Each structure stands twice: as C-alpha cells, then as structure tokens.
C-alpha cells in the first residue's frame, strides 16, 4: 500500500538520485579527468570541453603498465581460484562433519577477520622471508588466500548447511566416498556461492596496495595497484590524467568479470543466508 503513495515515490526517486550521485559521480569524474588533456586536469568542465583519448592510449601502449596488469591478472586469478578451493573444503568440513574443536576453529577463522590487515603485515613479511618467498608471486597468493578464507569459509558453510544431509547419505549408500560426494554432488550445487567467493577474492587481491607493495619489490613482478601509485603519485608531481586513465584500464577486468557473473554473485551471497 505504502509503495503506491506519492510520498513514497518522491522519497524513492530522491534516494535513488542521491545514492546514484554518490556511486556514479566519482566514476564519471574519473572518466572525465582521464579524457581531459593533462594540462586541463584542474579546469572545471564535465565532458563539455576539450576531450582526448591520448591518456588512455598512452596507458595501453605503456609496456610497464601492461606488465603490472599482467601480473595483477595472474595473481588475482590464481589467488581467487585457490581461495575458493580451500574455502570450499573448509566450509564443507565445518558444515557436514562433527569433530572436537570444530566450533573453536570456526571462531578462530572469524576472529582473524577482526584484526586490521595492516597489523598482520609484519608477521606475514617475516614468515615470507623465513620461507624465502619474498619477492615472489607466492607471497601475495598466500596472503590473499589467508584474507579471503574467513569470509569464504563462512559464506560457503551457510550454503552447504542448506544442502540436505539426506542427499549426502543417499550418495554414501550408493558407495560414493567423501571426496566424490564433495566434488560431484555438493560443489556443483554450490557453484553460485563459490563464484561469489571467487569474485570477492579476485577483487580483494586486485585492489590490494599495502601487501603488494611490501612483499614484492621487483618491478617485473609488481602488480597494478602499487605500480600505478608509484608511477603517477610522486613526491614532486602527480599525474592525475594518467592515473585516472590507468584506473579505468584497471577497472575493466573486474567490471567484465562482475557483469558476466553478477547473477551468480548475488545468488551466492543470498542463498546461504536462509536455512530451509
């Protein structure tokens, strides 16, 4: 009833515009700055003045930036894949097995999320150093898996909780082992949840600056976020036009992935929420 009133419609449209401004204005501002000539960065006009693709072409033809992009893709794809895999096994274990210490471990998983990631940096740095992993992709992969694991495990646990135990029992009666049940019966039913975790892990590693800058210092293996900041936000000068252009290029893979997988992402996030 309330939804049909004029007051609600006004409120709805006003809220939509307000939220839209907060969400889209910064993005449009970024695109606007990227399309302006570098010497017009601080000249105020919004798509209505001199525009150029020079900055974006400059980024796309910059071999160093493309190396950073390649590195980011490798690290993000691998870490999201591995994090999803590990989260799935952990979540399945928490959901379908009963053993001593299960709840304590689950609590510890969640508690690890309570600490700011910056606090863990030094400990992780020392561990990577001890294992001679500093400077390699592995240092980033392991870190990103660690950070994705708690959310991934808890989300997927909720998902697996919703899968009937009788289905698993039936499979056992038919002679299937635990691994077969997981990989052939349970995981296929949890694909939306797993995809949502994969996207979460991908975005996390794609956007990370602190760990990427600390654990990998070799420019040949540097990822995009630190690469862009180091290149364009310097002590002496700030090249906003190039920075914004590079940010657009950097956003493309995440956007493409999200557009294609958003159906699964939303289903994945909501399906595990309600136990039926």
């Amino acid at each position: 009833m309330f939804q049909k009133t004029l007051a609600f419609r006004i409120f709805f449209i006003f809220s939509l515009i307000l939220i839209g401004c907060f969400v889209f204005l910064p993005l449009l501002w970024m695109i606007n700055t990227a399309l302006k000539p570098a010497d017009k960065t601080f000249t105020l006009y919004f798509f209505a003045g001199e525009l150029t693709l020079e900055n974006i072409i400059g980024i796309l033809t910059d071999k160093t930036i493309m190396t950073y992009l390649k590195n980011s893709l490798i690290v993000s794809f691998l870490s999201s894949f591995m994090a999803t895999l590990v989260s799935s096994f952990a979540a399945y274990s928490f959901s379908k097995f009963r053993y001593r210490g299960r709840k304590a471990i689950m609590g510890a998983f969640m508690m690890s999320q309570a600490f700011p990631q910056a606090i863990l940096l030094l400990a992780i740095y020392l561990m990577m150093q001890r294992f001679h992993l500093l400077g390699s992709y592995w240092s980033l992969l392991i870190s990103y898996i660690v950070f994705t694991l708690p959310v991934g495990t808890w989300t997927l646990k909720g998902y697996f909780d919703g899968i009937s135990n009788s289905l698993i029992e039936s499979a056992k009666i038919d002679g299937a082992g635990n691994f077969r049940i997981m990989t052939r019966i349970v995981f296929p039913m949890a694909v939306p949840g797993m995809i949502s975790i994969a996207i979460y892990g991908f975005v996390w590693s794609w956007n990370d600056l602190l760990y990427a800058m600390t654990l990998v210092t070799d420019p040949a293996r540097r990822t995009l976020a630190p690469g862009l900041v180091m290149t364009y936000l310097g002590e002496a000068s700030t090249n906003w036009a190039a920075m914004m252009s590079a940010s657009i290029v950097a956003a493309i893979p995440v956007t493409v992935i999200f557009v294609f997988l958003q159906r699964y992402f939303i289903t994945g996030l909501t399906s595990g929420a309600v136990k039926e």
Partner: protein
Amino acid sequence: MRKVLAIALISLLSLSLFAAGAGESQNASAESGSTSIVWAGWSGEEEATRDIFQRMRTGYEEQSGNTVQWVGWTWADTAQQLLIRLQGGEQLDIAQTDIGIFNTVAQTGALADLNEIFGREWLEENFAPSTLAVGQIDGKQLGLPWSMAAITMVYNPQILERAGWSEVPSTIEEFEQCMADIAALGEGIIPYGVSTKDDTAAGDLMPWLWTFGTTVFNEDGSVNLGPEAVDTINWYKDLLAKGYIQMDIGRGDARQLFAQGMMAFYDDAVLAKGQAVSAGVDPAEVVNVCSAMPRPVLNAGDESQSTMWGHMLVIFDSSQYKDSAADFAKYLLSDDVALEYFEQNGMPPVTNSAANTEEVLNDEYLKGFIDATATAKLDETARMTNASEIKTIIVEELQRTLLGQTTAEECVENMRTRLNAAI
C-alpha cells in the same frame, strides 16, 4: 566439454604456478651476488626521476664492478617500508631519505655513523657545516646531505605583472594587497595556495607562525604557541573569508594549479620546477612562470622565514657492504653525477665543489631557494618520533577553525591541550 574445460583450467593453473615459481628463483639469484648492494628509496620509481636513477646505478656499476639493486616504494610509504625491511633483517645497504623520514629511520638505531665511514675530515672538507648539521643527531653524522634547499614561497611573475606588481611583496601588508589585486583580475586565479589539508598544512603553517613571532614548541620541547599563534590563525581565517586561500588544497593540488597558471603563490621546494616542466613549460623558461621569493615578513626588516628541505643518503649499520655503499654515495655526490641530477631535475647539489660551480651559482631558478636556505629552519617536528601525530593534531585543529567550528583562540587552546598530551 567439461573435461576439456578441466584440462584447460589445470594447464592454465600449472603454467601460472610455474610463472610464480620462476619469478622467485630469479629473485633469489639476484640477491645472492656478494658485491651487490641494495639501494632503497622512492625517486627511482617516479616518472620524473626513474631514468636518471637508472643511469646513476648503471654508471656506478660500470665504474666499480659492483652491482646496485634498487628497491623502491612510494615517497609516502618509504619510512614504513624501510622499517619493515629492517625488522625483517633483509639486506639494506644505502637508502634515500628526506628530512621527515630521516628522523624516523634514525630513531630505530639502524643507521651507521658516517663519521666512522667517511671520516670527519672528508665530510668537513666537502660540505658546509650547516648542511652537515641537518644529518646530525646526538653528535653522530647519520645522514649524508645529497640535495638541499629551503621550502619557501613560489610565485608566478606573469600573474603578478598582470596584477600590477613588478616586484614581489615583502611584507604581509603588501602580500595582502597583492592578493587582492590578483583576485580583482577576475580570472579565477587562486591568489595563494597555502596548504589546508594533509601533513603539508602543518608544514606551511609553521613558517607563518615564526613570521608572526611564535613557535609550536619551545627549545626544551614543551608546547609554546604564544598569543601570536592566535593572530596567525585569525590571519588564515581572514584570507579564507576574502577568498585568497582555499580549503582542500594540498601540496600536490597547489603544484598542479600553479603549473596551469591557476594560482599565483604557494609554498614549495625546488621540486616545483618538475611539475611546471611536466605541464609543458620549457625548462629554460621556468623562471618566467615559477620563481622563488622570500616569505613576506610582519614588519619591514624582519628575517624572512622558510623551512629546510632536502634529501639525504643513509647507510645502515647492519650492512655487510658499508664500504661499497659509501663508495656508491661518493659516486652519487661526485660533481658530474650531482650536476646531471641538477640539470635534469633541478635538485641542488650540496658538496662545496658542485654547489660552487658557475652552472649552479648562475641558475636563476635555484637562486631564490638557495637564498632562503641561509636562514631556513628545520620543521619543528623533524626530530620528533611522533611527527605524524603532531602534524595531524595541528592540521585537524586548523581545519576546524577554518571551517568555522571553533574560534582562533579555541583552535590554539585545543592544539595546546592535545599537543601536551601527545609529547
């Protein structure tokens, strides 16, 4: 179809893992060289200085036979990253620091006394005492000056000329009149880009406090902020009300606006040139649009105030290759290398021999900065371990007042209370 996808996925994973592993082994071999020193900092990563830093390294490598491995971060993160690397015991032989970072790193006790490495005689022979003093803490020479000048005021002569000013204002009264004339041009030019956000706002406020006759701290480290501090804050408020300064301006914003001819004055170091050149100004013509000037004084005859700025080289006590690091530092300070750095990036050399070459002495752009250096003081937080916290307090209280949330008196009182708790 599923099998094909699975095989493709496994192949991709294997290739990627191989790539990850390959990177690791290359890194290990690069660090295992016995004559390889590690040089850390930030300028080797930045667009404007990346090439010259590369040339410095290769030049030294060809000359000495040693190798120099560069490890870089952003300027803002260098102090934190140096500390992490030190904590981890990773190889670190020589690093670039600036005056702000220098103290933070020095307080860890990780820096070698350069008197022992270079010899006091060599240092005194090659540097002016005031320059060496910037790198001294508790009688130890922990920093080797590399490039130094003052942060002073920079102005655009063309804008001033349009506003009817053929000479720079020398007193605050003249400065205000000059800003009024610039505002009256109606060209949308911001008269003065004093920093009103981030740490640079505290850095810009200090020389104005000194100009008005007070300091943040007394010599014994206690909080000063005399009545003149209220005058300074009220002056800021007045400038803001008249539209001569603006909120939300940081050093980076001021540089860009200034380089685009949208700002008449702001505070900066010699690095100002780099942004102007990036904006398309011919390096030889920079002085026409970007010149240094003495900060206006309260009363004619007062001493103009400016803050010391500079880059230093430090050598780490834990380094196994201190001699090679010192050798490399001497190479960086050699006249040829220092003068090339000066020509390319405007970084003023500091050794007596390089600083007194005709090329440097006759450089019109540098002259204003060098003149200001004679009376420049260290930022009052430069020797504090919690400099960032102190600056944050100053900036937060200043911003609250400029936004009209507190009066100038409350601003100074709040600063005093919070600073007392922080020191």
